[in-house]
């Protein structure tokens, strides 16, 4: 099962490598990992997307909690939550394909943020699977470059990860 784990950790040098090191040392999967400081600059918030059986996910959350720099851990997938990822895609936009590309982008609520005679750069946000769906919807031959941020997530309603 795919899980989105959110955590707050001390914004210390090396904190990221403790998490990354934990995942490689214990052979856990990482689909994506994002990290940035929070409104309180002494803390970073990290979102990890991982895949594993329930037992493995339980160990992952326990092991993360055990890291001395980690303040709080929450498995977002255990409750209702919102997941968002940002993707920038540079595509070929020439001839009849140019109009088609714009239409597909619109359908996915993409925004064209850079244009040349031959290319569009499209910005898309959504869940990981929505971004996957967009890439599947366009002809791979048109894709020049893609860059994705990895997922961030937040609990719905009252659910929050706070110190």
């Amino acid at each position, binding site marked *: 099962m795919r899980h989105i784990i959110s955590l707050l*950790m*001390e914004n210390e*040098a*090396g904190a990221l*490598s*403790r998490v990354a*090191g934990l995942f490689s*040392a214990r052979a856990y999967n990482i689909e994506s990992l994002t990290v940035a400081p929070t409104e309180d600059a002494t803390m970073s918030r990290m979102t990890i997307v991982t895949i594993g059986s329930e*037992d493995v996910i*339980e*160990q992952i959350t*326990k*092991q993360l*909690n*055990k890291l*001395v*720099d*980690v*303040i709080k851990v929450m498995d977002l997938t255990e409750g209702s939550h919102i997941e968002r990822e940002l993707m920038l895609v540079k595509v070929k936009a020439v001839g009849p394909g140019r109009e088609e590309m714009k239409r597909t982008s619109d359908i996915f609520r993409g925004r064209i943020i850079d244009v040349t005679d031959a290319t569009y750069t499209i910005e898309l946000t959504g869940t990981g699977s929505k971004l996957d769906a967009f890439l599947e919807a366009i002809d791979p031959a048109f894709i020049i470059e893609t860059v994705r941020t990895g997922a961030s997530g937040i609990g719905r309603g009252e659910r929050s990860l706070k*110190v």
Partner: protein
Amino acid sequence: MEATGAEIVVRCLAEEGVEFVFGYPGGAVLNIYDEIFKQNKFKHVLVRHEQAAVHAADAYARSTGRVGVALVTSGPGVTNAVTGIATAYMDSIPIVVITGQVPTPAIGLDAFQEVDTVGITRPCVKHNFLVKDVKDLATTMKKAFIIAATGRPGPVVVDVPKDVTAHLTEFVYPATVEMRSYNPVVKGHSGQLKRAVQMLLEAERPMIYAGGGVVLGDASAQLVELARLLGFPVTNTLMGLGGYPATDRQNLGMLGMHGTYEANMAMQHCDVLLAIGARFDDRVIGNPAHFAREQRRIIHVDVDPSSISKRVRVDVPIVGDVQNVLTEMLSLLKLAKEKPDTAALNSWWTQIELWRSKNCLNYNRNSPIIKPQYVVEKLWEVTKGDAYITSDVGQHQMWAAQYYKFDKPRRWINSGGLGTMGVGLPYAMGVQLAHPDAQVACITGESSIQMCIQELSTCKQYRIPIKIVTLNNRYMGMVRQWQEFFYGSRYAESYMDSLPDFVKLAEAYGHVGMRIDKPEDVEAALKEAFSPALKERLVFMDFQTDQAENVFPMVGAGKGLSEMILAEEL
């Protein structure tokens, strides 16, 4: 008053009441050594290899329950220390290792004797710090001691760049430091405790499986009280030996790969298992699938949530400190109206006694060649079961565990998790320094002892009168045993050729050496070694033991706990 970083390091150690710092100097720590020279609060012990410094600090911690301290220089000092750190990490031992680092402006420039200490040690420490600002030094030292000693203990590395040891700041040693990200759970969940007690009282075939956590958490007294109150059988892991007295009837001995028949059978066939400070290691339960074949309900007490349901799913997890949890359990049990089911317990004990009557640790006592088991048995007699025993890794370690009956905790000092050959001698140093009047023996093999043999020199310098009991079978016996059983007796590189004359070697280092070839000389040699005449001397006993002897019982790797190979079956 302002102090330099080096002074601060030394004063923090004094504030912590540190008695011994085991270390080895080098460029990056010269400022610290200069401050050590000027103080007399703690004693510095100069080892001959940094690995031994960490092992000695680790053994100091194991045998006293206090945090051990080691000090090494940057680069090779650190890499030499890594084996010691990893060894302590695997057995959850509280130590603080202070490492020198190149000056902060040089970090990352491939400076002389630079290694990424924080990076290299990260996977084998509980936590580590790189102190970049002298203002953070005292707080970091305090944090290091707190983190090492609390919750699930473990090694903490404090990496101090050389310029930081020269920088000045006001020295204030905080009494404590709050860490919002670090708050180990101490008290067990009351609901779970009630469920656990209920389950224990309903048990028909109960079993208590007690591990290193009981020793680390100083909960032997509570464990004994609980087991006696309930009348349940107890088994100890290799790390838990001494946590429950070995000579007590209720103790079934060690379990696991080389555990007793009765302990392993009871473990496999119990209906309620109380696991305390033990982590269901692969050397303990064997194949988890085989273990799961029998239905049993499991209560698991551990201070580290990640130890629970890691290899085996449990029914009642209790996160908390062993001492605290056992004390709670005891008061609930005393209040409970129900009593353990005596009839069921009696028939369970009848079954257990039947298993015990196999006498699985029996061996040939009439052999004309020295049997290693016999040496350990005699050592137990000669020391009246009251010595501190360290060991190395191999067959001799298992015989020490099986035949020296530990009645007290913190008496058995060995590397279980990492299985590090070479620990025995530095372990004995750390123990003897911590307990100057105690009898300390190191049970070792001719291969293991050579891995830190240089420490004989340290023992001479500091007059450390340990007794080394070498079970010399001329083989890496544990390797040879596996090759005999599982590799068609093809003894690839497990013969220890060109051994030194250990008697002369001991003498060359200024110690007493003895070589013992015949069974009838074993007892006399041990008595002499422990006699008042040699009380102040290190004695190196080289027992020429049976080369072909194997450790039994044995659960083969990947096999189930009840699939034991017994001595008589071969």
